[in-house]
């Protein structure tokens, strides 16, 4: 059965198994490789995307769940209207603070933080710690926190 959804505003229809995780549909079927594979069991957050605005770990979301929904991936996080060269203020803060090291976790990190800030625009450090459980093996956490503070306490 074909499954249809919008990714970053663009309509896609896929004829794939219903239980294929959204992650692999995005990466291998649509070629959107910005969303990363880290663990496959919802334990690391590298694959975080937003489904209808909610952060979800796409490795553990069957593609059929996303049928009819609007998905945002890291490739769609930029805001073309922003006066920061197309990047969202969050991405800009990430560059200012030089957050990424290897960078592999950062797509998921940014998608998770972006979703958190939509829900809670001024989280305390504790609220950030409770909500952002993404693993960063490079230990970029101090700068993740600093960049979040920059955008929320400006």
């Amino acid at each position: 059965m074909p499954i249809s959804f919008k990714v970053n505003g663009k309509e896609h229809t896929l004829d794939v198994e219903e239980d294929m995780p959204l992650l692999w549909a995005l990466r291998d079927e649509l070629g959107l490789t910005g969303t990363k594979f880290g663990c496959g069991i919802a334990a690391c957050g590298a694959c975080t995307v937003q489904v209808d605005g909610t952060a979800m770990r796409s490795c553990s979301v069957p593609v059929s769940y996303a049928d009819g929904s609007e998905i945002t991936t890291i490739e769609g996080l930029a805001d073309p209207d922003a006066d920061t060269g197309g990047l969202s203020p969050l991405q800009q803060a990430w560059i200012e603070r030089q957050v990424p090291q290897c960078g592999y976790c950062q797509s998921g990190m940014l998608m998770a933080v972006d979703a958190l800030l939509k829900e809670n625009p001024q989280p305390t450090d504790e609220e950030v710690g409770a909500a952002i459980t993404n693993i960063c093996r490079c230990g970029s956490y101090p700068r993740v926190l600093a960049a979040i503070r920059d955008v929320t306490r400006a």
Partner: protein
Amino acid sequence: MAFDLKKPTRRQMLVGGGLAGGALLVGVSMSGPSRRERENAIAAEGGEKFVTTWLKISPDNVTTVYVPHSDMGQGPITALAMMAADEMDADWNLVRAEQAPAEPEFANESLGLFITKGQTAPDMLAGAAETLWYNVAKFMSMQITGGSMAVRYTGQHGMRIAGAAAKEMLVKAAAARWNCAASDCEVRDSVVYLKGKNRSATFGELAVEAAEYSPSATPTFKTPDQYRIVGRPTKRFDVPGKVDGSGTYGIDARPEGMLYAALRQSPVFGGKLKRYDASEILKRRGVKKVVELPVGVAVIADNFWRAKQAAAALDIEFDTGGNDAISSASIFEGHEKALQGDSTEDVEKGDAEGALKNAAKVVEAAYRVPYLAHATMEPMNCTVWVHDGKAEVWVGTQDPLGTRARVADMTGVDYDNVKVHPLLLGGGFGRRIPYRSGFSEFPSEIDYASLIAKEVDAPVKLVYTREDDMQHDAYRIAVANTMKAGLDEDGNPVAWLNRYVYKDEPAEAPHIPYAVENQSIRYVDNPTPVPRGPWRSVAHTQHTFFNESFMDELAHEAGKDPYEFRMALLKDKPRHRAVLQLAAEKAGLGKPLPEGRVHGIAVQQSFSTIVAEVLEVSLDEDNRPRVHKVTCAVDCGRVINPDTAEAQVQSAVIYGLTAALYGQITIEGGAVTQGNFPDYRMVTLAETPVIETHFIDSGEALGGLGEPGTPPVAPALANAVFKLTGKRIRELPMSIHDLSPASGKFAQAAD
């Protein structure tokens, strides 16, 4: 056993000659045309000329620096470009940097010179040279990133020379143009000026003429007070692509027509494929074929998920080769036995046994650390396409040229016909080196990807699941030691005896900086089939835990403050004293702390950088250690990019903290028990302490920064836990210990 090369190749013979003659210049002997001509052919396009080894100046006055190191996020590409650009007085806005292509001409010649001059190779390369292949890689493939050596070796001995020599050539070209002396010219921001006259020419305008001159091997360097780029916080070139999803990692490779491979390999190390029946899975949607490997079967499909699901469902049996009797317990038993037996000298100074006999007090302890996986965020992967007598490789690797050599060996394709496309690495930490040590016959993902590619008529991307990655790593080795020390009446250590398992790299890791007159440091070995490899800071991880914890024990037994005790024994080590003192001052050591918190300290020199750390620790309501703050003092000689330097220390501390608190890979039935992050826990944002980093600009030889922050974390934590609980932690990780007051003596022992 380890890997054998099948037939002598051209590379090997060159290396043999180099070894015998002792004068092989890496990469140069191979090429007919001169090194510079070859480079021009490889990387220069119309109108562009290389003026020295690693620099390219284009007509638009952009200077591109080719860096023969992988950037795993520790920023060497930017830092090395800064060093070259500063020496040449380039305008930083006109500087670009790229990872060098995987061609020998771009190999790390400064490392090569170390070898040709009869000096010893950097730690990382000198290590584990037990296979012929590794010797080949060692001498021919100098693009390895590890041992925190990018800035120390390539930067110091390569980039600065390249930059300074380039500047001299550009000035010569300008002087010839204007018919004046070189001393009449001055350089600012990528422009050469004729002093006092209204004449100038950009680097870009002068590049073609400058290329006519030979680069000087001994150009004049700037003095540190003249630096305008080095030492300033500088934004990295690679960051923008890492916030918008455009950065392409190895796992993101998508050559036209690519298929995907998932493995089903023997979980037992050294195990072999016995039988399998693929008839069922070959009926599945998207599954194209299966490829037999010595250790298992690869399933090839048109989507990774399909390949992985089919591999998991495959009817397969393995022959464990008897290795299923091996466990962590049996390995440590073997270690204990080996420690009782004959040992080999590492350090013998004075008469340690004699001094121990006459000591007023003898202190003994035995320490252990478990295996550790690297758990890079990006699981291992490698894409290979064998076609028309050629092989192409897409991979994120710490060693592009070593990878090239390895793929050539594995596919049988001639080295010259192997092309490596180096992509971003989602973490390295020592894992992404195409070399394994252990008993497995085909031990790495690069090998498997190559063998698979030979059997498939398309590019194939092999991806490890997290479970594959964690269970088939090249681990930080599990080791043990026994320590004895003698104290005199005044509590001064007079004897230090250490017997440890496995002489790993760097060679100096087990040594102590403390003034103890009589020392006997010796090692034994107890080989196991578990693959081992370098893990962030290599042998320093275990030895710093052993030595710095035991120093704390001695201070306690001597009735002295651990900080004062160390300072007294470091009387001949001013740099160690300075970092320890700075860390203590900044942390407020000895000053009152909030209720329930204590300080633990440790210091270690590794990769020419000295780091002291003070951890502020308490126990939470579940009696688990909670680290609130880590104060680091670092002497790495000089800081090139303060912004990445701070990030590197933070990163190394968090990596060390994860290992100290939770890190443990255990072997049962010859296989790894842990499979994914829930079993191999990671520190997350909520647990991250405040990390303060203070640098000392000592002007000494440059040290590394990617690793030296890691070793002191575990002993400083254990020393703090002792203060909190009276419990001496002699085995990691912390999570295996019950620290509740009911578990034993509490608190009073620590005062």
